[in-house]
């Protein structure tokens, strides 16, 4: 069978498959950013962390022949980037957004520098689970070939959603994010909590990067990220800092990202490049639709520098 046989049904199917495939890095980066922002800080450097994570994962996987070690290395690299951001931001009069932009460029630059020798070799991929094996339609099989990281990401968003309400750590992050004064009055050190939250956020972004280079698209190039790290920040705001919302929004963005290739696969030859821009247009529309000149965002952590 080929694409024309299932006809236009291929489009929603490809979008579903694409949503699952493309959304995974969004899920990890946005969950990481959600943790960081809930603690009252913004880390715009996650784009750089993502690229550096992708490079680290690929390089380590090539050298050790294990994608899991690559994943671990990416998480550690992300953790370091996050801790670095958190450490700089603890100094007075340091702006977290400016540091984030600096780290974004630094991370990408460093990744290109170290990543040059790894553009050629082939690394082993992260495994996927063929949920579509019951069907003999190849499009269905392709769409339901789900990577384990997607499942971990889905589980993680549930766990985080639960943890923000039901664990000491979750409540502490929310306290620090909403009111530094209240946190200090409780004997908490906001800087320490934010340092840890930014570190964890960085580690998750690193894992998101590992997915890019080790599964989809599955190779290391300098153009591996197309701004996922930055869009994830917009996505967190859209999701109102709610982990479940982050997951849903990531799926939506992933689906939008899959629109272009899906249309191309059913034979739309004109203007599909326009649909490649769908995620960016979606970002813009969402930012405009959810903003208002007269009221502040509902649910925004009170200590966040963009909502103050």
């Amino acid at each position, binding site marked *: 069978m080929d694409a024309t046989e299932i006809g236009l049904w291929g489009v929603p199917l490809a979008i579903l498959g694409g949503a699952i495939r493309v959304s995974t890095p969004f899920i990890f980066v946005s969950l990481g950013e959600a943790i960081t922002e809930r603690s009252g800080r913004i880390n715009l450097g996650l784009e750089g962390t993502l690229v550096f994570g992708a490079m680290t994962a690929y390089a380590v996987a090539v050298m050790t022949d294990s994608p899991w070690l690559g994943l671990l290395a990416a998480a550690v690299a992300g953790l370091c980037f996050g801790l670095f951001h958190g450490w700089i931001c603890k100094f007075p009069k340091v702006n977290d957004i400016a540091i984030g932009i600096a780290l974004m460029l630094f991370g990408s630059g460093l990744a290109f520098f170290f990543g040059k020798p790894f553009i050629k070799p082939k690394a082993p991929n992260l495994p996927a689970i063929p949920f579509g094996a019951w069907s003999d339609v190849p499009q269905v099989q392709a769409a339901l070939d789900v990577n384990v990281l997607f499942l971990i990401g889905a589980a993680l968003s549930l766990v985080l959603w639960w943890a923000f*309400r*039901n664990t000491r750590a979750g409540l502490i992050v929310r306290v620090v994010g*909403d*009111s530094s*004064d209240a946190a200090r009055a*409780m*004997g908490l050190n906001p800087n320490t909590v934010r340092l840890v939250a930014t570190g964890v956020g960085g580690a998750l972004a690193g894992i998101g990067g590992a997915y890019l280079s080790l599964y989809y698209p599955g190779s290391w190039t300098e153009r591996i990220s197309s701004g996922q790290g930055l869009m994830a920040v917009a996505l967190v705001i859209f999701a109102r800092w709610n982990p479940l919302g982050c997951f849903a929004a990531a799926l939506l963005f992933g689906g939008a990202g899959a629109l272009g290739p899906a249309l191309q696969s059913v034979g739309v030859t004109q203007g599909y490049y326009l649909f490649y821009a769908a995620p960016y247009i979606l970002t813009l529309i969402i930012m405009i639709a959810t903003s208002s000149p*007269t009221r502040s965002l509902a649910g925004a*952590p009170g200590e966040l520098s963009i909502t103050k």
Partner: protein
Amino acid sequence: MSAITGKAVGVETIGMTMRFGAFTALGDVSIKVPAGSFHALLGENGAGKSTLVKCMMGFYHPTAGDILVDGREVAIASPRDASALGLGMVYQHFTLVPSLTGAENLVISREKVPGVIDWRKERGDLAVFMDRMPFKLPLDVKVAELAAGEKQKLEIIKQLYLGRSFLVLDEPTSVLTPGEAQEVLGLVRDMTKAGDLTVLMISHKFHEVTAFADDVSVLRKGRLTGTGRVVDLDRKAMAAMMIGDQPIAALDSRAEPKPDAEIVLKVKALKAPDRTGLKSIRIDDLGVRSGEIVGIAGISGNGQKEFLEVLAGQRPRDAGEVMVRGTAYAATRAEARALNVRLIPEEPLKNACAPKMTVAENISFRTFDIDSNGKPVSWISAGAIRAFSARLVEQFKVKTASLASPIASLSGGNVQRAVLARELTGEVDLLIVSNPCFGLDFSAVAEIRARIMKARNAGAAVLLMSEDLDELLELSDRIFVMSDGALVYETPIAQASVQTIGEHMAGHH
């Protein structure tokens, strides 16, 4: 789980001294708060009240002096030490986390919180605890959705939940309605009488001190200027201890109101969205005549701020009209200049100044681009700005190191004096004022109120929004109450009763 210990502790300071460099914030202060008593601490801003309690709570390490708890000398090196001894503080600014529910706030503030919180058990424990509390509160809604009075009660409950039996209350009623203030202080008073609690209350309000406190201590410039039983002291004696012999500006006697004077400000069927965008404010009909002060009372967050923003041109309106002397008024610079409309918003440093620009520049904001004939100038003269502002600084007694200092370096009272100087110079037909004395000390308050009264007597129509009912009762000719975005009650000053106004503020009608 912690609970009321059922036993209040007494606290005593001996020779407390706190120096910051060469500056003595607190000099040799000894006060005694026996167990189960309600002690008031009076003093102006900067008198050292908060320095004293911060030393007691372990935030500061005093240069000299000792603290006794229940007669035993203790070392309090950190807030943690203070709480271990049962000492707690309720801050003027709420320390509850707005996006957490009451229950979450209580549980997370505990010393020991389990890694995973068993909400079923915690809720059960909280219900048992709340049964023994004098206040009833919803613990399952976000703190942000509670009224100010409920937040204040929750702050107190939090301290009791944490097992504190000596509480410092820092101006606990500044955000409450008179009714709420009575209720909260009354309940706290009952707990001290029952021997469950000892209270040290920082306050500015004499009537609260006389109504609730057993003893009072007064600080001025870091020194203890008086202490004694409240029953033995009258307000005059307390005021004398508080401000010493410095002169206090007297209020101009009120010129006779003219009921048929021209209506300067007329607001009709005004509608505008409020801060959340979910509700709107509606002002059906409001007129302010020349030579009168119309006060608007209300608990913060009932639309006063939005109403002021509409009048100031900071907020778009959905419908209705604002007329000044019969002309439609949209708060443009040209209109404000032509109609002599002046504005003193709350938090003047934030809302009426450019904090990093100089005192001279800030004072000249209304006049820097016109010459003495009111014609636009093409070159701005720094010399003229300096001369103009030097004159006003002198006239309004603004204390500043220099005209070229950034206005943010001035104290709150002096920022407000500078703004008054700018707004009250020249002809004023309409003056819109909001919370002009918030956070200012005694003498600044008296002076600023006197200036407003003077403007009224000179024929200005004054619209005064304030959360301080005493201020409104002192200045206004008529008082409106704003509740839930609308003016719900009007009374001439002669018939005004705090009780009735308070009930309308609370929305009980």
